[in-house]
């Protein structure tokens, strides 16, 4: 039995026919839509490499069945830059060496974007570490990641102030 679902992925509508209900959002993105920026690390919700935003919230795409997310609005690492202009979190990761091998980086960046929208960490490094604990980095680039997120958060705070001024 096949199931048709419709998703918005990085702003574009994608209609997908699923011939198997077992497909996760992660596998759908990578294998069907060929958006391989989202990484499969543990495939068990333990490492965070597969983090994407679904309806504005960060989740582990490896633990989400695609068929259950019919109608969802999905944002992946491929959808955050504007042309050649990097997203501020991407730029901050480069500026602060927030990675070494880069495998966890798409998940780290999507998680950081989700975290900033949640507005639970502010500019407290201890809170940032806590709120980013769902993203593991085997290279141990955590110090750079925290610095990158702090800078991106400061930039977001500044632009919010400009907007409200």
């Amino acid at each position, binding site marked *: 039995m096949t199931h048709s679902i419709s998703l918005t992925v990085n702003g574009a509508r994608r209609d997908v026919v699923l011939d198997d209900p077992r497909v996760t959002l992660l596998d759908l993105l990578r294998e069907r839509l060929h958006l391989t920026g989202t990484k499969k690390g543990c*495939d068990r919700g333990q490492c965070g490499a597969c983090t994407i935003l679904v309806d504005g*919230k960060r989740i582990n795409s490896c633990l989400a069945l695609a068929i259950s997310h019919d109608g969802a609005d999905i944002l992946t690492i491929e959808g955050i830059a504007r042309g050649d202009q990097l997203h501020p979190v991407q730029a901050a990761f480069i500026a602060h060496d927030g990675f070494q091998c880069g495998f966890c980086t798409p998940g780290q960046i999507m998680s950081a974007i989700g975290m900033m929208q949640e507005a639970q960490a502010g500019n407290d490094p*201890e809170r940032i570490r806590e709120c980013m604990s*769902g993203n593991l980095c085997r290279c141990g680039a955590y110090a750079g990641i925290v610095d990158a997120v702090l800078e991106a958060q400061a930039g977001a705070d500044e632009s919010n102030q400009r907007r409200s001024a």
Partner: protein
Amino acid sequence: MKQFEYVRPATVAEAVAAAAQPGAAYLAAGTNLLDLMKCNVSRPDRLVDVTHLDGLDRTERLADGSLRIGALVSNADLAHDAEFAKTFPAVAEALLSGASAQLRNAATVGGNLLQRTRCAYFYDTASRCNKREAASGCDARDGVNRSHAVLGWSESCIATHPSDFCVPLVALDAVVEIEGKNGRREVALEALHRLPGDTPEHESVLEPGDLIVALRLPAAARGLAAHARYLKVRERTSYAFAIVSAAAALRIENDKIAEARLALGGVAAKPWRARAAEDVLKGLAPTADAFQEAASRALTDAMPSGDNAYKIELARRIVVRALSLAAAGTPARIPALPASPFASISGAIHA
């Protein structure tokens, strides 16, 4: 993962009918279930997806002062609800001490209650496990079992219930609303999970088709907000299950404990309410001696199930610390590292 039939019911009644069939399982966020299915520990023939059902994602205050939380409210939405965190601070702190931000965004209230043990032998299909396969044996009993149960365990099973959320909930007399084949009924959360006995494969009192539709916190739980804490010891300070945890809540009047609530996590197959400890505290001044006595009562029946005798002393100390922190007063903000005994109190922004 085994092949399954996917069903998306339009109503609760349709869901109950679809899930009452043998081999059916409910799917909410799936943060635990999909993992178990990938490991072949759970092998449902049919998944009944309840995530699109209307009306289960709302929180409402009822006329009697109780708070009704829909089963599909996410762990994150509940914990970050400022009014909720103020009224039930230990519950919010417990939620924020569990899993990761990504998992809390997805995981639901109902799913959290029914999550399965993280016993490694339960997850490993090459091991014997009475919970996974009835009467097959228990490799945890003589295995690596330093994190296993010290209360309520049996020779058949020494697994623990992993939820943080359930620990303050059981202390606050939470009630579970269930829709089943014979209509709506209610079960105290304390009575939802079963101790293993000879049948560890039966983990709860739920029958086939039963759907948790809501969780209710009674009005009386509001009176404990001023002195409530959740404390959790784990092997790393974030994103780890409890080795031992405790929820403590006190109502203090005229410098005496008018009412005490205490529950332990990570020690048994269910969230463990420690009523003997609560009783001994009533009428006493909130002193270290009183809390030591309560801790001793809470662990009177504790027995190591393997290489885990340390958990009994650890649990006593966590009880004393949780009660002491509760007596000192609920902090204005949830600590930066929720429920951590190592946390500074600089504070999350929301509470």
